């Protein structure tokens, strides 16, 4: 099936940004009908390379060949002309416009050359979408469809323009495991029809499942290109990070003691007036990690917010170390021993425009020794920050660096430093490794296990089954606001997958 002549070749691509060489003489080639994975940690230069290929960045050195012909790309328009389509890491969709409008934009069918022919546009989009079994309504507004469907709209945008080379930049970062599996199936169909795919990711299991060949980038350099046959997670991780990485979490048996977090028949109404949490009860005990598995949007966020006092509880109780904290304000709950690693570190975990020292002081700035009589002591903040940054191995900045300037992994380390550094008895970690690369994931996981071994009660909420399974001592499955199943640590991924989508409900109820 795979034809040996490359449809696309990049030779010696170099792209410099002020202070960084994002791509350093990178070679890359793509064969017809293959999935070629581009693997690397955050900041390795993957997006830069494909942006060069899509005409968004102009390389400082190097050349691009399509079907053996050298080409020049001045803008995405040229790339589109050469059959290159791209699904960007952050979708390039206009939320308030319809699916069809997004797809035909810039190549609209017209009536008499003046009016936009909406009928033709909708029809062509519907045909294209049904030929891939996408089941997308061309007239639906993009903001009203799921993220997985939005991604399909992006793919349709490329197909509508007759792309035969498709670039996907970290397409699975925003998907649920089910959606990711569906995406893989779509990509396999496309390649069987002769499409060539460049697939960017930093997730090793995906690479081994999907790719025909794998090119690893590290700090702007191409480390190697290997066939999937013979590649191992361990070997790829070493190429990516440059050292041996612990992929499986190393942890001993739990030594469980008294319950520190007890939830009893909790009900929460979300901001749309719907009951998002419908009678949830569970306990997390000292010395254990309890994993809460579930598809996004089944009440996890509301549950966490209710526990940490950010959302009103409509009935039921939350107890922290035996003490009823239902309806208590968030900062008192934090002071009573809750640590909270929020799911969106950039939005809720950090104030991006503040310095690291200020971010680390967000809980304690209003009490001595940080402040007294309404007077803040910045030197004290810096002193604490210096200590925490060192203990939690935060790289890329000091106490005065703005949080926005750090990479994702280091930002998360700052959040961990603040939340774990205060010595809470209960720790809630919501999607603590979302968007992080292998090295950073390893660090976060080690911290969570260490917290558990120090006798804290850890509640881990994650959409990644891998993560739930490798860390948890007990697993709870949440579906439509209810806990539908509970398992020991050795439950199978299949079983959880069924229960998470409502399949196991009758059995559990």
């Amino acid at each position: 099936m795979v034809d040996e002549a490359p449809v696309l070749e990049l030779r010696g691509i170099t792209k410099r940004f002020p202070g960084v060489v994002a791509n350093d003489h990178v070679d890359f080639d793509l064969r017809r009908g293959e999935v070629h994975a581009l693997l690397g940690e955050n900041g390795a230069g993957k997006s830069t390379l494909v942006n060069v290929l899509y005409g968004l960045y102009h390389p400082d050195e190097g050349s691009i060949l399509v079907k053996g012909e050298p080409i020049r790309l001045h803008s995405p328009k040229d790339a589109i002309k050469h059959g290159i389509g791209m699904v960007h890491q952050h979708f390039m969709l206009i939320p308030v416009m319809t699916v069809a409008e997004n797809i035909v934009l810039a190549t609209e069918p017209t009536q008499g050359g003046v009016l936009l022919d909406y009928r033709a546009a909708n029809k062509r989009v519907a045909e294209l979408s049904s030929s891939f079994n996408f089941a997308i309504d061309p007239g639906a507004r993009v903001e009203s469809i799921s993220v997985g469907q939005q991604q399909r709209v992006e793919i349709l945008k490329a197909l509508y323009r007759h792309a035969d080379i498709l670039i996907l930049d970290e397409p699975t970062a925003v998907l649920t495991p089910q959606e990711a599996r569906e995406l893989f199936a779509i990509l396999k169909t496309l390649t069987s029809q002769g499409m060539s795919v460049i697939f960017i990711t930093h997730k090793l299991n995906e690479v081994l499942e999907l790719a025909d060949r794998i090119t690893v980038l590290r700090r702007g350099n191409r480390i190697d290109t290997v066939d999937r046959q013979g590649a191992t997670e361990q070997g790829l991780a070493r190429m990516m990070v440059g050292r041996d990485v612990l992929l499986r979490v190393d942890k001993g048996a739990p030594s469980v003691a008294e319950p520190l977090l007890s939830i009893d028949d909790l009900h929460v109404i979300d901001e749309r007036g719907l009951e998002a949490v419908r009678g949830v009860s569970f306990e997390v005990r000292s010395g254990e990690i309890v994993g809460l598995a579930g598809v996004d949007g089944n009440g996890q966020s509301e549950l966490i917010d209710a526990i940490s006092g950010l959302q009103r509880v409509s009935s039921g109780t939350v107890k922290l170390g035996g003490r009823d904290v239902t309806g208590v304000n968030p900062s008192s709950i934090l002071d009573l021993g809750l640590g909270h690693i929020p799911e969106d570190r950039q939005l809720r975990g950090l104030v991006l425009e503040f310095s690291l020292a200020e971010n680390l002081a967000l809980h304690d700035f209003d009490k001595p020794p940080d402040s007294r009589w309404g007077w803040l002591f910045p030197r004290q903040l810096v002193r604490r920050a210096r200590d925490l940054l060192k203990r939690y191995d935060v790289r890329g900045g000091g106490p005065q660096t703005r949080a926005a300037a750090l990479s994702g992994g280091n930002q998360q380390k700052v959040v961990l430093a603040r939340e774990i550094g205060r010595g809470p008895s209960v720790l809630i970690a919501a999607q603590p490794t979302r968007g992080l690369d292998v090295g950073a994931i390893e660090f976060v996981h080690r911290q969570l296990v260490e917290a558990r071994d120090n006798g804290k009660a850890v509640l881990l909420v994650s959409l990644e089954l891998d993560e739930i399974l490798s860390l948890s001592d007990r697993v709870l499955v949440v579906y439509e606001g209810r806990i539908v199943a509970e398992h020991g640590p050795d439950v199978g991924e299949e079983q959880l997958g069924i229960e998470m989508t409502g399949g196991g409900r009758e059995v559990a109820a």
Partner: protein
Amino acid sequence: MSVRAEQLQRAAWTRASAPQTIGLVGIALGFLALWLALPPFGVRTAPAPVAVGILAAAAGIWAISRGKVRVGGGAIVIGLVGIAGALLAMRASSSNLEGVFVWSALLAATLRFATPLTFAAIGGMFSERSGVVNIGLEGMMLMGAFFGAYGADQTGSWVGGIFIGMLSGALLALVHAIFTISLRADQIVTGTAINFLALGVTGYLYNQHYGNNGTPNNLPAIPDVNIKFLSHIPPHGLGNFLYNSIGQLNLMVWLSLLLLPVSYVVMFKTPVGLRIRSVGEHPRAADTLGISVYRTRYGAVILSGALAALGGVFLSIGFLNSFTENLTAGRGFIALAALIFGGWRPFGAFAAALLFGFSSALALRLPDLSASSSAAWPVLFQTLPYVLTLIAVAGVIGRSIPPAAIGRPYIKQ
């Protein structure tokens, strides 16, 4: 998922739909309360209007209790204002009332006052839909007003005035475009500067050319469109009403009405409109499909200047037949407000312009209501358009959602 969707729908209806409707009915009743006291009904006793107004307020209270604070509040305020207005109207003599509330004349004046706002608001729509805030509408209108008069004077023809006026607005808009799009200056600051620039340029040129005597009395004027046959439509009352309201309007009024569907079609039914909107919503997405963000924005801003200038041209050579310093007197800002209240849509902006137009027309006539009015009264009535707007906006319309990328300069990679 389906359970939730169903629940959501049911919740949505019981929570929103019924109280919303009742609230809107309340608002209508509030207007009715006032209207009862005006010609042709001319109710002269308190009970009827008061009862209707109280009903309006009651509907508002009920809507508020069901969570529709905005509409409910609107109904209460309008109900109370309706009662107060009706009681005031009863204190004026019948003949005075009939002198003020000549509906055909009010309608004609409303359209006349709304016209410059409509042109400028539609112009603003093009600019803002493409992502560029256009506070400079005021200045662009003023340029149009002066150069319309100047052009008509120099060429001896109102057609020349229109073209030169539009050109001047487009040129000023080009300045705005260069600063905001290419040099990425702050759009609010640039727009403000544009307004002062226009004030200075037109003030200087006016004094230079017409300083002593003002603009000549025989300025070529844009003609009115006389639709004689309207007055022959039976029955006689209707024919007269039609002829007196829309039978003698200025050509520009009709042009502004024509501009509404045209601009609607361009913005929402053509590729050009789709591209303008895409650039205003998500310029990077447009860029990745090969649309030139800069070129699109330049085009939209320049068009916006030309259209705003048309509003000014109408003011000087279609309405007043003269130019004086700062002739527009803030109408560009009101057009901007109309654009925002109208949700950046042509007919929405027109509706808001009509509201302004109506209250301006009314404000001009209200002082005649009472014979003993002091000199301060007319000034107070001038605030009517703004008061009505505040009520309409805070009470009924609520927040309109601007284009997502508005105000943000685009930096190409």
